[in-house]
């Protein structure tokens, strides 16, 4: 560690990190646009300039904190008039061609340029020349749209592809004031990590097509959670509007798992979270609202206590029950399923779909089971969907529990199961199966709290981002209630 002085305070700094990191670690605010802790520093925006005292008898210098290494005895001031003036001049140049788009811009509210201009900028521009007129809506592939006018040419996006995904796709085209960001040969962007560009862009130049104009960012409630699209379990922030709908999923920094990044598969996995409820009083055609029991006319809505009694009786009178949980089951739910399996003298198992083709070197593991490791550690057996269906075909009764368990087993395969199978399912959506006798609704993984264990054995936390629908109770409580009812019913009666 190196000893330096920041704003009159003696601090220790890591000599391998640039000066700006030492300042940020000490809670000293230094603005940054082109610098990103996950990317190589280039020092192109010059907004991070700070004053460094010169050698004795020499005047002090203003240096870019992102490109200056920390050296022993350095005396740094970020708050002097000289540092402020230099930064303010840089800001004026950056704003010279930046349109006054904030009311329209999706970045407004989380924009570094807006924040710094608000704190330090002048109320009025001094330039009388018109601003650059460039393309406002340039599509860069399926995920990202570029607004060339808003771009301040920090080149974070260019470096994201060279430094993180290691496949250069963007470049700064043209010279001087004609410079714009573009892909090579105008080809659309490829890969599963394009969405990160919208996050790292310090201004609103690169915005997400899916989120474009969907909400103002200050209206979004952010909940810390974990991504469920693969067994990596990236740390995410689930951002919902008016406690009704998840509008956006963004990565949050986790040094051990995903750093600052996440894949587009996880980022755009909003469809399972925004499914509409089934019409009032109906079981099919959307998310399950209440418990449902098979009557003369198929599945009918029922009171959940009555349905639970019925399920306990049914399982007790059909011994040899299979207990299969979803790979989305949290540790808490898995523990409850374990107790249920013990009460039913069954071997606990979980559905383990085949790895998908999304695996890459960066984050995606290709394994669609977010809690595989946790379930294996609890003693669950992994069961491929085909094997699960084969086992179900000969079983007298079965409990399928967890978010999307029916979907992962395959509706086509489930439809072929014999009618004599007594099937109790806990899932977000019921299915019109001849063998499905009782169904209970469960919350999705943004509507419950719990823990998943990722592929490296790290615990990912789930928090409640949205309130679950009115009559939907936690799966672990429902399973515990069923277990309690089963122990009250004499076995084999």
């Amino acid at each position, binding site marked *: 560690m190196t000893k330096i002085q920041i704003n009159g305070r003696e601090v220790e700094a890591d000599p391998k990190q640039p000066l700006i990191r030492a300042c940020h670690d000490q809670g000293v605010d230094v603005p940054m646009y082109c610098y990103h802790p996950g990317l190589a520093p280039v020092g192109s925006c010059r907004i991070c300039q700070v004053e460094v005292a010169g050698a004795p008898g020499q005047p002090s210098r203003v240096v870019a904190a992102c490109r200056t290494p920390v050296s022993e005895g350095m005396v740094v001031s970020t708050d002097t008039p000289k540092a402020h003036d230099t930064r303010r001049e840089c800001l004026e140049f950056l704003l010279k061609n930046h349109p006054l788009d*904030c*009311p*329209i811009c999706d970045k*407004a509210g989380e924009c570094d340029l807006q924040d710094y201009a608000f704190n330090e900028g002048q109320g009025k521009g001094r330039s009388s020349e018109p601003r650059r007129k460039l393309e*406002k*809506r340039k599509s860069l592939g399926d995920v990202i749209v570029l607004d060339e006018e808003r771009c301040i040419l920090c080149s974070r996006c260019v470096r994201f592809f060279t430094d993180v995904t290691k496949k250069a796709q963007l470049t700064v085209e043209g010279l001087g004031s004609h410079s714009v960001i573009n892909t090579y040969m105008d080809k659309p962007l490829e890969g599963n990590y394009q969405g990160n560009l919208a996050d790292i862009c310090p201004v609103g130049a690169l915005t997400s097509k899916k989120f*474009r*104009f*969907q*909400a*103002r960012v*200050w*209206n979004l409630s952010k909940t810390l959670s974990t991504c469920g699209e693969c067994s990596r379990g990236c740390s995410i922030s689930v951002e919902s509007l008016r406690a009704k709908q998840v509008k956006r999923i963004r990565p949050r920094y986790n040094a051990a798992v995903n750093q600052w990044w996440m894949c587009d598969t996880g980022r755009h996995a909003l469809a399972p979270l925004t499914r509409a409820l089934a019409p009032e009083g109906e079981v099919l055609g959307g998310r399950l609202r209440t418990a449902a029991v098979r009557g003369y006319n198929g599945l009918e809505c029922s009171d959940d206590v009555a349905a639970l009694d019925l399920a306990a009786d049914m399982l007790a009178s059909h011994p040899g029950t299979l207990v299969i949980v979803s790979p989305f089951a949290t540790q808490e739910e898995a523990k409850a399923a374990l107790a249920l399996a013990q009460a039913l003298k069954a071997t606990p198992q979980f559905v383990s779909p085949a790895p998908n083709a999304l695996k890459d070197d960066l984050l995606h593991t290709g394994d669609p089971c977010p809690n595989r490791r946790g379930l294996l550690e609890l003693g669950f057996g992994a069961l491929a969907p085909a094997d699960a269906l084969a086992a179900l075909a000969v079983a007298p009764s079965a409990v399928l529990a967890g978010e999307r368990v029916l979907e992962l087993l395959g509706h086509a395969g489930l439809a072929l199961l014999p009618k004599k199978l007594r099937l109790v399912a806990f899932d977000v959506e019921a299915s019109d199966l001849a063998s499905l006798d009782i169904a209970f609704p469960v919350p999705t993984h943004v509507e419950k709290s719990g823990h998943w264990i990722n592929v490296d054995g790290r615990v990912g936390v789930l928090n409640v981002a949205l309130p679950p629908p009115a009559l939907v109770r936690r799966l672990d409580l429902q399973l515990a209630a069923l277990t309690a009812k089963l122990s009250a019913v004499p076995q084999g009666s």
Partner: protein
Amino acid sequence: MVVVQRKELTLAERLYLPEVLRGLSLTFRKFFEKPITRQYPEQPLPTDEVTRGQPRLVVKDDGNIACVSCGMCEVACPAYAITIDGGETDRGIEREPKRFEIDMLRCILCGFCEEACPKDAIFMSNELELADFTRAGLVYDLEKLKRPKSALQERIDYVYRLNNRWRSKQ
């Protein structure tokens, strides 16, 4: 203790009839004078540019709404009366409201939305009446809020005049 001395009535007053006639004469005189009351629903109160009635959205002369759904009025509203959902449009402005609702039962006519708007899209109109048979009917949507610019011009000019006076003092 206060002792109130009751005035002795004169003979004419005690006779009663002269006083009744005196009172009726005033009543009949007023029949022919200009009335000071107003036939309210038929004759509404006069309004002028200073009247701060219900907020309305400006529809520009080209037929497009001036609002870009930036959400500034939503934030400024102290009564949480405004709800906006934006969306993309093919126009050059890129963004426009897909849903813009003002709950008129919540609105306190403070005019903060008018002040916050960066696009001159919302102004306090001279419309003050508010009645319906349901609460839902008083949550005004985009169609109920839109007004041509000409209908709000008087207020727009007033706000500009006011702002300019404030600016010149700076």
